[in-house]
Each structure stands twice: as C-alpha cells, then as structure tokens.
C-alpha cells in the first residue's frame, strides 16, 4: 500500500513539476479570490480585518477545489484511467498517494495565502502554535475528502461543475473551525481546543474513510 502510495504521489508530483498547473494557476487563483472577497466586502479596514480569517479559509477552500480538479485531470481520460486500473494498483495506495500529492500542494497554497492575508489585511498573529497546528490538521481532512469526492465524480462529463457542489458542503466544518482557530490565533477570545478537535476528527475520519472506501470506488 505504501509503495503504491509513493508511486502515485511521485507520478502526480512529477506531472505537476512538468506542467506547473498548480503553481501557475491554482496559487494565483487563491490570491485572486482573496482579493475578490475583499472587493465584495468593501473597503472598510476594520471590517476586512474582522473577516480576514473567514476569507483566508474560504480562499483556501475554493483554491483547493481547483487543486483537486487538477489532481483528477492528471488521471487522464477514460482510456488512461482504464489502463491504470489494469495495473492492479492497491486502491488504498492510490488514495493515499493522491492525498499526499494534494497535501503538498495545499501546504504551498497555505503559505502563500497566509502571507497574502498578513500583508493585505494587516493581521497580527499572536498564537503561532495554534495557527500552525490548524494549518497542519485542516489540509489532511481537506485533501482526503477532496480526493474521495474527486474520484466519485471522475469520468463523468460534468466533473468541473459537480465536484464543487459535492465537496464544498462537506468541507464547511473545516471553514468554520479553521476560521475560528485563525481568529483566536490572531487575538480574538475563544476556545480553540474544540476547534482543533474538530479539525483532527475530520482529518482522521476522512483518511480512514478514504482507505476503506477507495476500493469499491475504483472497482469499475
């Protein structure tokens, strides 16, 4: 399983290195959505500062949907996916591999977005450990839920529209929990342990689900 996971992650990352789609399209998109959200909210600086945690997470979520879309398109069209299936790779390995590759891309995304938020919205972080642990826990659940739903929708002609509809409501808890951790870490009062707990539970459940459910998904 781990060997297959490595193989798949290496393939995804190599294709990314060659095509640089995530770097050139998903990263700028994350920035872009940050800016658009700022536009939508208006120019009031206190308002912006107040909403910056939510906007950070919302941008991350939308960008991660794009990242997932890219991760799916790496699998190629129907014929390519069938050819891959005929290699008899362990489904759990495929799931883990794709999740890991996506995680690495999400990590890069988080760093860039965080920089963006700190600069654009003048946010000051007072509790780095909290922020960082939320930024480590959340993408695990994010990536694994996205990969599962991604493969629920692959091969359908309408993946591009169906994926966000399916995956975003499921990710809503991440948005809330992440945003709360963020605002506590940037000085708001509140209990962050609960929120970190939700992030951890979410991550655990979806990694497990992926390992268990990916088999039936890949079956045919």
């Amino acid at each position, binding site marked *: 399983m781990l060997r297959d996971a490595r193989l798949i992650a290496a393939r995804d990352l190599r294709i990314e290195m060659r095509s640089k789609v995530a770097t050139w399209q998903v990263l700028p998109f994350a920035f872009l959505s940050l800016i658009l959200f700022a536009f939508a909210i208006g120019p009031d600086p206190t308002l912006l500062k107040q909403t910056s945690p939510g906007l950070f997470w919302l941008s991350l979520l939308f960008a991660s949907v794009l990242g997932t879309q890219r991760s799916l398109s790496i699998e190629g069209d129907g014929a390519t996916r069938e050819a891959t299936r005929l290699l008899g790779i362990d489904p759990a390995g495929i799931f883990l591999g794709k999740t890991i590759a996506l995680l690495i891309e999400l990590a890069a995304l988080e760093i860039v977005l965080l920089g963006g938020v700190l600069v654009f919205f003048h946010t000051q972080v007072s509790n780095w450990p909290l922020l960082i642990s939320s930024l480590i826990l959340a993408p695990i659940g994010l990536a694994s*839920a996205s990969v599962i739903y991604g493969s*629920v929708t692959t091969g359908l002609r309408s993946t591009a529209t169906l994926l966000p*509809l399916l995956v975003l409501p*499921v990710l809503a808890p991440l948005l809330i929990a992440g945003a709360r951790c963020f605002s506590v870490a940037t000085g708001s009062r*509140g209990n962050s342990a609960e929120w970190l707990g939700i992030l951890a539970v979410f991550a655990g*459940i*979806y990694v497990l689900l992926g390992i268990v459910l990916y088999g*039936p*998904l890949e079956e045919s």
Partner: protein
Amino acid sequence: MTRRQLTKWVGVVSLAAAIADVWLGLWVTPPDVNQGDLVRLVYIHPALAWVALYLAFGVAAICSILYLWPRTRSFTMDRIAAASVEVGVVFTVLTLITGSIWGRPTWGVWWTWDARLTSTALLAVMFIGYLALRRVPSDPHVRARRCAIAAIIAAIDVPIVHFSVVWWQTLHQGATVLNPNLTPTIHGIMAWTLLLSFLAFTGIFVWMLLVRFDMAVLEDAGVDDGLESALIDRRAEGSSS
C-alpha cells in the same frame, strides 16, 4: 398482502392520520399563550424535520453502507437509499419552508443564521448534490457505488457540521433567537396531537419511499423482462449483416 397493497394501505392510513392531525391541530388544540395560533405549526414542522434528518438520511446512509458491503450488495439497497434521499430532500425543503413561515412572525425575519437553520440548509445542499450525482448518466453499478459513497460521506459529515455550526453560532452571539418556549403550556391534547403528527409524517415518509422504490423497481423490471427480447434482438443483428 402484496407489496402494492401494503403501499396503498400505508398511504391511506398515514394520510388519514395526517388529516386527523390537521383537524386536531387546527380546531381541537388550544392556541398558545405566547404565540397564539402560530403554535399550530408545531404539529407539522418538527415532525417534518425529524423525518427528514433522522429517518430519511439515516435510512439512506444505512442502505448505502449495506450496498457497499459485498454480502448485502443489491440494487434494492441502492434504490431504497435513492428513494430515501429524494423524500428526505423534499422533507428538508418543507422543513425550511415551514420553519421560515414560522420564523417570519416569531422572529420577524424569514431566516436567521441560527445553528440549526444553517446546518439544515447545508444538509439540503449536500443531498441535492447527491441527487445531482445520481442524475448524471452512467452504468447502474458504477452509479450505485459512487452514490453510496457520496451518501456515506455526507451522512458522516452531518454531526460534524452540526457541532461546528452550533459552536460557530454560540461563540459569536450570546442569546440565540430560537426559543419557542413551548414547555410550560403544553396541554394533554397537544402532546397527543404532536405524537400523532410524528406518526403521520413517518407514515407518509414510508409511503413515499415505497412509491418511489416501486417506481424504480418497475422501471428496472421492464428492463429485466426486456432482457430476453433485447438478447434476441441483439443476436439478430449478427445474422442480418
């Protein structure tokens, strides 16, 4: 008793129960001290919500798991799950509508970002997504598997959504608006009417489920009957050319 008859009787009985419930709710039970006649929505809205959230989506999740489990895999499970989600979505939307109607006079607004309301809305979208996935044409086996997984994931997310939304609400805002404050005035006949409403809506759920399920079976049965002739037609293609 055949299934057709069963379906019919479930339908008749639960419709009768619902009518009785409306009668009790509108004419027999007294108006509430605080809410007046508005309280009568209590005989519809909570029952709808209960059926949608727990019964319909619960049944869908369980049947989806049973579908994925190799020993219990059968299209019956898939069809029940699908029918259950369909009815569930209808009931959820009705919950939202009745809730909004109730909210308008009580809170003065149609909608508020209360925890329960928000999570209901999210849930509706989640399962509308399931139905959208189901609509996309693909091989029935593949579709059944994909939908089962989508349903499981969505169902597992429900409690997480619930908690996060509850905390989301309470952290920011102190007093929550939703406080129907029914307990002190609950009357004997009101309790019975309430119970009847739950039974009636459960019955209606079962009835709608059976109807949708039978429709699905009928469609596919047409195919099974058609299989022999389809095979004959198919083989004939070989000799004609």
